[in-house]
């Protein structure tokens, strides 16, 4: 296992002011989570703001000391062996830069190579390969302050891979990045995971990041893992709905069916949400076919955002699927 954690907990002490008086309150950020991630996996850690995602990552990278529990990352205890672990992991925090603001990325790369004590010859090979794969040539000598956010994030991720880490932590790597740059970043992360075997643990509020990069999803809420499952299973098991879209050659009129909600209705097209526990897809499709000549029809899972929103909306403690739902 690349990462394993048992009963990992973190409590923050927060000072609250009440007029002149202040009193300390304990906030349970991470509540006794168990976690295991195998070599080469791409795992998404998702959850609403304040769920405990970043705190979990910071404990696994050794930045934070847990209040209770144990963890091993690449066989090391992160908060005890932080310096040794630093040579084996890479990390990108989307809201914080590791590049020098006034200097071009190339200078930051060179500095990082010194910080990680990299062999000069191998460092140059690795740097040149990253420059090519991440398409950094056009802005390699431009000061970071003059780069677009998308360019900067490409340079950030390349910088985190300079020392050939075995494990990559990505904390909201696409935050604030435009659609095109976001897709490029996702492709690069996926490529690195699949071709080079780097284990990836990514947190993001963007369902697209999760869909493109991760094979497995850990949903954290109220400091606990409320779901640990494959992405495909998560869709199937957490929303008993399908979205059926149809286009017709002529005009049509849909009659109401139990368990079918009309999302959009036009003269030549319709979009329906089907509750599969109330009505079978077959019945709905037959009903649509009876309406007229079909030009196109599609059956889709609901958007991932909906699945995630559904899981987030569940009250604390209703984590019946924790860790047990993962299928091989």
């Amino acid at each position, binding site marked *: 296992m690349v990462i394993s954690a048992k009963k990992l907990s973190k409590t923050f*002490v927060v000072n609250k002011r009440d007029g002149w008086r202040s009193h300390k309150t304990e906030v349970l950020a991470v509540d006794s989570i168990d976690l295991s991630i195998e070599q080469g996996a791409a795992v998404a850690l998702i959850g609403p703001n304040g769920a405990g995602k970043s705190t979990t990552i910071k404990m696994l990278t050794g930045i934070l000391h847990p209040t209770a529990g144990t963890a091993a990352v690449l066989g090391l205890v992160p908060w005890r062996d932080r310096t040794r672990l630093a040579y084996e992991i890479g990390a990108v925090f989307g809201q914080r830069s590791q590049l020098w603001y*006034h200097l071009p990325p190339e200078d930051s790369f060179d*500095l990082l190579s010194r910080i990680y004590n990299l*062999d000069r010859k191998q460092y140059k090979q690795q740097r040149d390969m990253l420059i090519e794969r991440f398409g950094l040539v056009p802005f390699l000598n431009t000061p970071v302050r003059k780069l677009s956010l998308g360019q900067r994030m490409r340079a950030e991720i390349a910088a985190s891979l300079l020392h050939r880490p075995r494990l990559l932590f990505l904390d909201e790597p696409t935050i604030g990045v435009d659609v095109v740059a976001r897709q490029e970043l996702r492709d690069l992360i996926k490529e690195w995971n699949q071709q080079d075997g780097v284990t990836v643990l990514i947190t993001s509020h963007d369902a697209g990041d999760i869909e493109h990069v991760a094979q497995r999803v850990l949903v954290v809420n109220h400091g606990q893992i409320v779901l640990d499952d494959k992405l495909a299973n998560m869709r199937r098991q957490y929303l008993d709905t399908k979205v059926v879209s149809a286009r017709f050659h002529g005009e049509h009129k849909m009659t109401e069916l139990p368990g079918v909600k009309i999302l959009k209705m036009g003269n030549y097209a319709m979009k329906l949400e089907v509750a599969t526990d109330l009505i079978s897809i077959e019945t709905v499709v037959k009903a649509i076919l009876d309406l007229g000549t079909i030009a196109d029809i599609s059956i889709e899972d609901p958007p991932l955002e909906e699945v995630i929103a559904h899981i987030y909306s569940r009250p604390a403690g209703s984590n019946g699927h924790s860790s047990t739902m993962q299928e091989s």
Partner: protein
Amino acid sequence: MQSIRSTHLGTHGFVKYIALAMISARSNFAYFGEICGRQLFLAVILYIFLRLWKVTYAHCGVEQMAGLSLSQMLWYLTATEAIILSSSPISTIVDEDVRTGALAIQLIRPTPYPLYKFALYMGERYLRLIANFAVGTIICLVLAREISITAQGIFALSLALPLAITLDFLGNFLVGLGAFWLENTSGILFIYSKFLMVLGGMLIPLDLLPKPYAELTKILPFASIVYGPAKQLVHPCGEELVHVLVLQTTWILVFSLIVWQVYNLALKRIAANGG
């Protein structure tokens, strides 16, 4: 994935800190306007104080004060101002790192945070010191019309200065670490900087104070940062130089120990919650 770490760690350990200092100095060139502004401020301050001392010497009708001629006094002031005005805002940087959570980025690097900051600080501070001494020397030559420093003085300064700015770093870093416990460290920084100016002997050499006060202030760490190196520049003395270096080393050891203890305590208090 195979690691590409060098196996020759002996030299690389040191090289990385040199690289950090160099990149810090280069990065600070981006603030060229600020560097020029500082030099202008230094020039104005020096001009005022040098004129004041000229008047004081003339009014008192003495050749020497605290064992220094007027020319030596002007060079002493140049050295103290150059040291004080080269100060890097390291405590503010550490304070911000703690409050914003930027400290987290540093902690996942295979370089201890205090040493990382020390290397950056040295790069920045040496750049400022060179600029300050260059401008200070020009102004002093114009006003004093005499070079009253010797090769021995420059040699003594070159030995005492690195220790002085190391000690200043430790003091400032300690103030910055206060952010783990305090809501605002600017008050402590204000007191520290004023102590450095007054008890460090920036405005007047400590020898001009009444003897008991002079003896006391000379053994304080503030004197090791400002007075000690500046006095050695204008009035080098082998015995006194050894005394200054021993005192500086002692304070560095004491402050290093305190910083190490406080830093380790602080690490357990990190609350870098949120992205």
